[in-house]
Each structure stands twice: as C-alpha cells, then as structure tokens.
C-alpha cells in the first residue's frame, strides 16, 4: 500500500479523532481494531450510563454552576452530551449532594477515558501512516 500524502494523512488523523469523539471506539473501528473498539465502546457507555443512573441526567449541567473542567470532561464522552445539556438547562432536573458528586465523577471520568482513547486512536493512525511497506 502506497503511503498517503501529507495532506491526506492529516485529514485522515482528523477524521479518526472526530469519529472517536462522535462514537466512543469508532476511531479504533476504522483502524480495523474491532475488539479494541468494542471494549472501549462498552466500557465508556456503561460508565457514563452508571453516572447518569446514580445522579440522573441532572448531573449534565452545562449552563449551571458546575465547574468548567467537569463540563469539559463530560463533553469529551460524545457531542450528544450537549443535547442532554440543553434538556437539563434551567434546573429542569435538580440533583444535589452525594448522588450529584458520584454522578459527576462517573460521567467526567468516562469523558476523560474517552479522551485517552481518542488520543490513542489518532496516534495509532499516525503510526500506520508513517509505516513504510517492507520497512
């Protein structure tokens, strides 16, 4: 297989990163790492779901008093979190105390784990791009 041009390689890395953000594990899936992508998808989605099960969708509080770093970490799960954020705007689903904290910890940790997977998928795509046939 002929190596991609620099522009195509950059575009490919961007596509892999974007896909990995859109759907957890999708970045590895396009790199034909099916087992890895299934494990990542199941684990990230389950961790995120446990978070919103404990604290309700109210833990996604994009426009409230939640610190920016928690919101940023939650958004790293998938852009769908922004849609959930619009649903919960204006204290529509209030949640306080321990369930709120545990829910925020779970959803933001799931997001940070997905960020790790996005970086890993882009790095794997980069390594694949610089690999010279027979080298």
């Amino acid at each position: 297989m002929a190596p991609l041009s620099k522009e195509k390689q950059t575009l490919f890395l961007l596509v892999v990163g974007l896909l990995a953000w859109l759907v957890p594990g999708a970045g590895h899936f396009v790199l034909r790492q099916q087992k890895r992508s299934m494990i990542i998808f199941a684990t990230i989605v389950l961790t995120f779901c446990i978070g919103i099960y404990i604290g309700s969708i109210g833990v996604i509080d994009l426009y409230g008093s939640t610190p920016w770093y928690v919101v940023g970490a939650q958004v790293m799960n998938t852009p769908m979190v922004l849609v959930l954020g619009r649903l919960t705007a204006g204290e529509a689903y209030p949640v306080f105390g321990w369930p709120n904290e545990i829910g925020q910890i779970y959803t933001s940790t799931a997001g940070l784990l997905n960020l790790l997977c996005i970086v890993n998928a882009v790095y794997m795509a980069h390594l694949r791009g610089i690999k010279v046939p027979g080298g």
Partner: protein
Amino acid sequence: MFLKAIFIIATFIEPEKFGANPQSMLWLLPLVAAIAIIYKATKLPVIKAGNFIKEAAILFGSIVIFIVIAALTLHALAWLISG
C-alpha cells in the same frame, strides 16, 4: 414494551437516594474497573481474551490495594494526630 421503555427512561431522570456512608465508598469499584479496562485496551499491542482479562484484573487489584493502603495510612495519621 412502551411501559418498559418509560420505566427505563424514568431511572435516568430521578437520582438515587443515598448519603455519604461507608457503603457508598463501594461505588469506586466499577470506576476502577472501567479505568483498568480502558487503560489495558489502549496499551496492549494485541487483544486476546485471556491475557486481556488477566492484565486488567491485575491492574484493578493493584489500584484497589493502593487505595486501601493510602486510606489506612491516612486513618493512622489522623488517629495519631487527634490522639
């Protein structure tokens, strides 16, 4: 079917009710498992079921043991300071 869907959705719009008690510390276990699984999924060069489970279990155990040691150390320190 529709009723089932409503019940499932309802579990995600009402928070669980529990306080800060010793049992609630067990919520850290699924999180540690998720961290161990994702870390090993990104680090292992080849994913094989047996090896993957073994590696993830070792990491899970290591993290939990470290947390327990840290908790015991802090508890002993607090006991020494407060008498």
